[in-house]
């Protein structure tokens, strides 16, 4: 038996702690996973959007540790999401507050993220009920794309569909892989093409943030990049959407190296960063994107940059035994009072940290 690297052991310890923290968020979530924990306000209501994309993380964690408790939790959440799916195939936006659901409209972004959970459970169990739900959701999404490749309705804060909705096109294509629905694929690609047209000379993508103007958190920047990368993988053409992201990712590789993983939390479209805080979930997401790029053209220098981003999260992750509620959680920002998810521990920070840890451990194992 080969001895594991000390860093790999550390990564596995962090993964266990964060995955268990996610289980705790599910225990408090009345079916779904609570959006966040706040030291002042406690656990929030469950959040369908992130509950959806936490499912594949838990399925993967289950395989990683060969421990079924994570996949059992994933299945339970999948059942809850099936129960709250709307008649038209969509899922509603925001947190799940049962009293406010009457008349609530479907959310493009949230529906997209839930598709990932449905597809992960379909692949895990082979149960058609998950594929059917995903198919209905993807068709609802496809029917909303207009001739310009945008969703005219259902956006969060921006006046025009933000570019980070590439993270919606990706799961649509994930569904298309199983349904082979040209309607779903065409709609997803129409949006991807429209978003790629927003690419600026410096590699940044216009409208990649929550708002029309100003800086974007690295969270939505990484959403944008990852959406392009995964879509390229699914259509089997890396050059179409994956390659155009490389220059931008090289920028973040350099940022990670020069800051020892402490990447500024937000950037404007001129790629000027706000160094006052780190968006921790964005750090983890960018590390995943860098590792995805590295798969195309293996180079340990990229793994090094990703490791630094991941290590930074680990270095600021709470491990306090005094407050079990934050042990294993990952704050929105470092410091905790940074602009992104001020004073809260979102479930998606823990989710992306888990994903990044599993990605880097897999990569290092190949090298060993």
């Amino acid at each position, binding site marked *: 038996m080969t001895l594991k690297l000390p860093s790999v052991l550390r990564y596995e310890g962090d993964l266990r702690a964060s995955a268990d923290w996610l289980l705790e968020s599910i225990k408090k979530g009345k079916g779904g996973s609570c959006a966040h924990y706040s030291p002042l306000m406690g656990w929030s209501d469950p959040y369908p959007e992130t509950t959806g994309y936490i499912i594949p993380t838990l399925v993967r964690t289950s395989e990683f540790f060969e421990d079924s408790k994570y996949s059992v939790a994933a299945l339970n959440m999948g059942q809850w999401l099936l129960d709250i799916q709307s008649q038209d195939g969509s899922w509603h936006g925001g947190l799940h507050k049962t009293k406010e659901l009457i008349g609530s409209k479907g959310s493009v972004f949230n529906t997209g993220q839930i598709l990932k959970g449905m597809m992960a459970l379909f692949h895990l169990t082979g149960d058609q009920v998950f594929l059917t739900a995903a198919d209905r959701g993807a068709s609802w999404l496809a029917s909303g794309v207009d001739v310009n490749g945008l969703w005219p309705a259902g956006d969060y804060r921006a006046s025009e569909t933000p570019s980070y909705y590439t993270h919606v096109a990706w799961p649509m294509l994930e569904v298309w892989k199983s349904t082979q629905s040209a309607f779903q694929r065409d709609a997803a690609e129409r949006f991807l093409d429209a978003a790629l047209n927003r690419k600026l000379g410096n590699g940044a993508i216009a409208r990649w943030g929550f708002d029309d103007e100003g800086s974007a958190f690295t969270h939505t920047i990484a959403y944008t990049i990852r959406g392009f990368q995964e879509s390229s993988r699914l259509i089997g053409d890396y050059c179409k959407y994956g390659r155009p992201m490389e220059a931008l990712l090289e920028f973040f590789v350099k940022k990670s190296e*020069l800051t020892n993983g402490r990447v500024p939390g937000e950037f404007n479209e001129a790629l000027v960063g706000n160094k006052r805080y780190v968006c921790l979930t964005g750090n983890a997401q960018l590390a995943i994107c860098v590792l995805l790029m590295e798969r195309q053209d293996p180079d*340990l*220098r990229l793994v090094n940059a990703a490791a630094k981003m991941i290590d930074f999260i680990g270095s600021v992750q709470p491990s306090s035994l005094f407050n079990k509620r934050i042990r294993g959680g990952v704050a929105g920002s470092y410091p905790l009072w940074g602009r992104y998810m001020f004073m809260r521990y979102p479930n998606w920070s823990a989710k992306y940290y888990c994903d990044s840890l599993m990605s880097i451990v897999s990569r290092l194992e190949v090298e060993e």
Partner: protein
Amino acid sequence: MKLVITAGFDGSIPALAMCELLRRSGHCIDTVLVVTPFSVKRLKTMVRQRGIQGLKKVAGKLLPSRKSGVELNLQAQFLLDNGIPFASLKAWCKASEVSYVVAKDLNSSESIKCLEESGPDAVIYAGGGILKSSFIKAANHKIVNNHSGPLPEVRGMNAVEWSILLKHEPSITIHMIDQGIDTGEIISRKRLPIGKGETIETIRDKAVISGVVEIVRLFDGLTNLNYLKKGTNRGSSAGRQCYILAPALRELLSKKLKGRPNA
């Protein structure tokens, strides 16, 4: 030739060895330009790039290490083997009557003024941080450096380590410094044999010593840099730059070294 030698700190063994060995081969060392290791700017850069743990490690290296009873590293052994009895550049400069200048930064006005006043035929870079165009211009673009990796393939920091990780033949490269990171003209490249059981530290020491020996060899009997630069290759910035290894990559390298066959 009239030379200026830079150093990142007063106890720099490669700078000390080069000063003495080049002096012995008939060159005139006009000035030794030493950067203060503990300036606020330098500390901030170190913390940003290496973190607090990295800073502690660097500080350990900057402090005097040749205590009695402690096993000598390869660099210190090289000084002994060559009969160089000095513990610091300051002591060497005093004994050799060479101007010793301490600057906060090699790119500072005091440092550039010193260089302009000296007007050397060449500057030998033996540490002190990244050089800006003002320094390069003041040195008339005649700055020679020993890079501990094969150029143009392995540019940047931790070059010995990256050579092994990226499966390049460990080598040192003597090159001119320009405004890019290790992108200047290449003068010579020399293979670095690595034996079984070597550690990262011993290989790094070997690369440093090998660089000193190579620079002294290249400068032997040289009257100007033009001859040295004749028929050389251009460097390149095409490849990715290398940076300080993250802990996981350092551990991976150690593991690879342990399993490496004899060179």
